[in-house]
């Protein structure tokens, strides 16, 4: 990687004293950021630290209350995204802005149509330029491929191509690796390095420390709207960065201790389930989770994990197979039936399933037990008991909220998830099912939730953990099942698992697949 020669070079991008206030909150408080030509500059911070707001200011989506933006040393006003694009600033969003049914070339041309004449698109010229750009940056792509048929990693490359096609000089990537496998992450890093070498400036937003250390030339850490430090990877490490980011010392990897698994609690056999549109997503899963162990399921999102979990907890009717809990057949029981049988479930989407955002925190803390003593007597809700236990849960689970009576929607993501965790963990359990328990959370909240999970395991609960975050699965699991194409393709020992091996299994499903299953998949 080229070290930017001379600090004398004017920064490609400079943001000076950017301040942006929202009612009651200062999202950015005098932030200074300098990005040099050819530099990969990482922006690191917890959720709500102000990274996204800062980038929205840069992209013209939010007007700063104070401060200025300079491009190549000249002060500019950015009126909106199209203005930003015209000035060579492009953003690759976490959620891709692509049309799946269109081809790569069509997606890239959207809004930027090169006309051969006033009526027809100049497809030939567009194809030539796309092919040339791909060659130059080391990823050749078929311009006629349908975007929907591409893997997530390649879709991201299409987004990057789109930016390059528009002559982007400054590329902002908002958590680009959140949806990628480790292999895909490596590949995208190679692309980014190539871009930087050609003189592009890259702003890389992330809260994954090891990634930032690997890819960035410089790292700016933001906490509560302020820049709290600037580092070069060589002069820092993960612990230092985490401390800067959170403002206190953080234990990055939870001390998992040793597990003492007992008899199997959950036994799933031949389970099959379909998604909402009736496509089979889970195709005959067998698994066993023992009391006092964490069974992790690793897999690229969309390989049937969500449907598997929903079928186990009663949210989705299995099409075949059985679920037994401590020897009792509970297949097809209702969510409440499962809850009362001692199963707690932390859903992947806390906004859609886990919480009612327009209800107070206290009501959300009793969402699955509101009808039971002591929270109800007959049909009468017992406000005192609800409020008392809410206050206690808020204290014990460190839910930061002004009171139990504010709406759950006003809390930060981490505190919302802590509320879900408090509700689902805080009782005697046989089985705890966790789907993406820390998705989108900051390191402080992740640390807290991981500790709670370990504590639950040590108390003898069987834990089934699904996460798209491979590191999370590796860190917590006693055993790991890799899910691919609706099946568990391998079960490996957690503490000794090799990250690359698991990543490869996630991406390919493993070389030695059951031919019958492969045929079935092809047929389905």
């Amino acid at each position: 990687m080229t070290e930017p020669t001379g600090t004398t070079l004017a920064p490609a991008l400079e943001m000076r004293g950017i301040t942006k206030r929202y009612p009651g909150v200062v999202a950015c408080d005098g932030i200074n950021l300098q990005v040099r030509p050819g530099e990969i500059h990482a922006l690191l911070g917890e959720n709500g630290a102000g990274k996204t707001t800062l980038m929205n200011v840069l992209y013209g989506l939010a007007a700063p209350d104070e401060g200025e933006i300079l491009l190549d040393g000249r002060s500019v006003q950015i009126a909106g995204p199209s203005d930003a694009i015209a000035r060579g600033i492009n953003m690759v969003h976490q959620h891709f802005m692509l049309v799946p049914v269109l081809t790569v070339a069509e997606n890239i041309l959207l809004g930027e149509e090169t006309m051969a004449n006033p009526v027809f698109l100049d497809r030939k010229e567009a194809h030539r330029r796309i092919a040339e750009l791909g060659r130059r940056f080391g990823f050749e792509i078929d311009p006629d491929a349908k975007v929907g048929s591409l893997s997530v990693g390649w879709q991201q490359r299409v987004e990057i191509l789109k930016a390059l096609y528009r002559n982007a000089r400054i590329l902002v990537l908002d958590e680009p690796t959140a949806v990628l496998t480790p292999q895909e992450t490596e590949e995208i890093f190679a692309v980014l390095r190539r871009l930087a070498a050609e003189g592009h400036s890259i702003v890389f937003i992330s809260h994954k420390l090891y990634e930032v250390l690997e890819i960035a030339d410089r790292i700016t850490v933001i906490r509560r709207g302020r820049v709290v430090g600037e580092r070069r990877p060589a002069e820092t490490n993960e612990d230092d960065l985490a401390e800067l980011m959170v403002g206190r010392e953080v234990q990055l990897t939870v001390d998992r201790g040793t597990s003492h698994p007992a008899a199997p609690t959950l036994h799933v056999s031949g389970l099959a389930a379909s998604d909402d549109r009736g496509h089979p997503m889970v195709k005959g899963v067998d698994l066993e989770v023992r009391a006092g162990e964490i069974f992790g399921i690793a897999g690229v999102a969309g390989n049937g994990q969500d449907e598997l979990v929903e079928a186990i907890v009663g949210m989705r009717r299995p099409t075949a197979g059985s679920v037994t809990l401590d020897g009792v057949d509970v297949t097809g029981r209702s969510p409440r039936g499962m809850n009362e049988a001692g199963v707690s479930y932390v859903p992947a989407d806390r906004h859609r399933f886990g919480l009612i955002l327009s209800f107070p925190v206290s009501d959300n803390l009793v969402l699955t037990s509101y009808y039971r003593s002591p929270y109800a007597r007959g049909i009468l809700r017992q406000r005192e008991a609800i409020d008392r236990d809410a206050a206690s849960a808020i204290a014990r689970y460190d839910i930061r909220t002004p009171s139990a009576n504010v709406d759950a929607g006003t809390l930060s993501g981490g505190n919302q998830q802590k509320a879900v965790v408090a509700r689902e963990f805080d009782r005697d359990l046989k089985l705890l099912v966790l789907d993406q328990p820390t998705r989108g959370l900051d390191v402080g909240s992740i640390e807290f939730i991981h500790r709670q999970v370990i504590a639950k395991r040590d108390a003898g609960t069987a834990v089934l953990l699904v996460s798209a975050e491979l590191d999370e699965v590796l860190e917590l699991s006693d055993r790991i099942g890799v899910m691919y194409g609706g099946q568990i393709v391998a079960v490996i020992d957690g503490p000794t698992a090799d990250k690359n091996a698991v990543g490869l299994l996630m991406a390919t499903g493993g070389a030695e697949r059951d031919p019958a299953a492969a045929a079935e998949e092809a047929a389905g």
Partner: protein
Amino acid sequence: MSASTPSAPRPQPGLVARAWARLAIPLVVTVLAALVGAAIILVSELLVPGVEFSWTLPITAYQALLEGALGSPEAIVSTLANSAPLVFGGLAVAFAFKAGLFNIGVQGQFLLGALGAVIVGVWVADWPPILAIPLATLAGIAAGAAWGFIPGFLKAVSGAHEVVSTIMLNYIAVALLAALVSGPLKVPGSPSPVTFDVGNAAWPVILGRIGHIGIILAPLAAAFVWWLLRRTTWGFQVRAVGANPDAARYAGMRTKRITIGTMAFSGALGGLAGTCVLLGVTHTMTSGFGTTVGFDSIAVALLAGSEPLLVLPAALLFGGMRAGAGLMQIKAGIPVELVDVLQAVILLFLVASPVLRRLLHLNTARNEPATPRATNMVPDVPV
């Protein structure tokens, strides 16, 4: 997902601020409607030949309206009596809103309620009032509940949208009523289709000449609905299904059953509105029976932001306008239909309330939307 929304908890607004956020829209909307009404009066003066133009006519008209609604003990009783069915109907709509359901079929449930009350009322007309009144009242409630149950059931089993099915049931109710009143329920030998009088089943008058017990039952019903929603597990479920059906299902609530129950209960309140008019006011039914109470109820509930207790003042406003319209026509020469115009304008402004909120700098993102989804649906609905 680094949040673009500020993550620090917003400070809880104080009591005054909360009250303002709740009441600002209804108050502003009412004032705006009055201004639009005044403009219409002025324009109509110009259009009607032979009328001498007077800038003060709107003031005269509103004064008369106010006097007719509140100017005398008799006027006040009239306002209360006019408001009572609107309270029941408004509660019916508001309750369904809380579960995310738009019960636009209050009119049908209203008619069925009146029908149930008159059928049983005529049957028990000679019984002692202590038996006749409750029986006829319960019959009206039950008939309304049954009429509300149907769209709830259809929605639960087949997903049929309640807006469509309740509108269609409105038509069926009108036709059913006409058929029964000109057929089996008709007084034999009567020249026009009219039923017998409900006799002892009529609601007793307790205030003035027309102040029937509905004026007591209406606030009690509002308090009951408030209590049900806020203090019971049933109400919690209803609100949960309305606010987030997915989370409700996750929490183990039987969302379909709750949908059916909500519609039946909403229908029961709609039926009570019809019962109130029949047993409290008309005592007989003609084939033309049918006020606009069912439709006005939707406006009442919207104006009240679906808050059961706010349904009371909203119903009083609409009931008062009905009570005062006559005097307005006599004193200012403004047709009583102006009241319909005012109601319609109020409804229009309520539908545009997101715009008003922005103009008033009310934080739109705050708290439970008073009428979940329903306000967005109003424009799609041919009311």
